[in-house]
């Protein structure tokens, strides 16, 4: 017992330095020959993908009203505050007109249904994200296991370099304590603190327990997510059958959010 505990102390000491706990834990387990060491692992139900991607069928949305439940579901669940001062605005997923969502893909006389259609925009979870390149602390990073671009709010120093680097305006900064702006707190999910940047997290907390993102759930089938590199995945089927576009493709960031127009 005493020996075991000392080892745990040791290994937690090592992992506290920022190294992933898992290999260290496993190494100790092997060396000592008894498996009764603490383990850190993914849940069995966790959804996996090489690169998560999203396909939004915009044809199913007709007015901004159609998007409200989706935005509301996300913002409520993630404790995204609402402030009157537009400068302090925080949003993870929101509604834009076509020519704002796709400023370099507009034509002069746009198809009427497209022109009036609402477009959901959010973090693109780029395969080649400029924000992660810019971050001086790796507080924002592309998760290797599934390609989601995430924020480590414990580490962010609030320099806002990622906001300048993002070509999609997907990031928000906490210019003040967000809590007073949250009408109804969701206890299951943390809020943020002032001085850090935040954005859509592709519902990483839900994927981990085998659930699909809130926006998907609230979209009545208009939004699908899946593995971009699994040829049999639902998103790949949709991409095969429909012509899709992405935001600012020319920049080479390889967005993972696709739009059926």
């Amino acid at each position, binding site marked *: 017992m005493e020996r075991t505990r000392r080892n*745990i102390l040791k290994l937690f000491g090592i992992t506290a330095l920022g190294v*992933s*706990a898992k290999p260290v834990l496993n190494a100790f387990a092997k060396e000592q020959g008894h498996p009764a060491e603490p383990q850190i692992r993914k849940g069995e139900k966790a959804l996996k993908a090489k690169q998560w991607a999203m396909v939004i069928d915009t044809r199913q949305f007709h007015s901004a009203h159609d998007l409200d439940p989706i935005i509301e579901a996300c913002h409520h669940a993630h404790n995204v505050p609402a402030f009157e001062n537009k400068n302090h605005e925080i949003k993870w997923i929101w509604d834009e007109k076509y020519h704002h969502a796709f400023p370099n893909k507009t034509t002069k006389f746009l198809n009427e249904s497209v022109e009036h259609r609402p477009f959901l925009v959010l973090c693109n979870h780029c395969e080649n994200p400029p924000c992660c390149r810019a971050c001086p602390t790796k507080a924002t990073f592309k998760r290797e*296991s599934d390609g989601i671009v995430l924020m480590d*709010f414990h580490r962010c120093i609030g320099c806002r370099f990622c906001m300048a680097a993002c070509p999609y305006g997907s990031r928000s900064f906490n210019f003040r304590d967000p809590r007073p702006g949250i009408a109804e707190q969701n206890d299951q999910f943390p809020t943020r603190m002032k001085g850090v940047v935040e954005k859509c997290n592709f519902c990483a907390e839900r994927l981990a327990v085998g659930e699909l993102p809130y926006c998907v759930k609230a979209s009545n089938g208009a939004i699908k997510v899946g593995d971009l590199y699994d040829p049999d995945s639902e998103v790949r089927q949709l991409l095969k059958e429909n012509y899709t576009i992405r935001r600012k493709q020319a920049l080479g960031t390889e967005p993972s959010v696709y739009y059926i127009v």
Partner: protein
Amino acid sequence: MNDKKWIIAGIVVFLAIFAFPFWYNMGKAAPAPEVKLTEKAKAAKQCVMPTEYMRAEHMQLLDVWRHNVVRNAEREFVNTEGKTFNMSLSNTCMDCHANKADFCDKCHDYASVDPYCWDCHLDRSKENE
């Protein structure tokens, strides 16, 4: 060197001021606080790790937890007894220790540490009261 007495007087004054917290509090050290356990915590008998370990190292454990949850998508912790826990401060720790004021704050105040956990993670004890 005629400044000797001034230098010594200066040092004495400096030390007196420097040591102010020590002699001001002399003889009236606050007793170490006793943390209170909720019924749920008492019934569980042991936390995710042995009590002694938790008492001394819970911050390291939490740091490992948050690192693996946030950065590696690993959210399950299996302890030496084979029990599985969801690695979550708000949803696991605070579920049992639903008395933040009597459990967390008491010791933190005593040790004069001010962790910023609750700037973001919600203290669920209010709803459980």
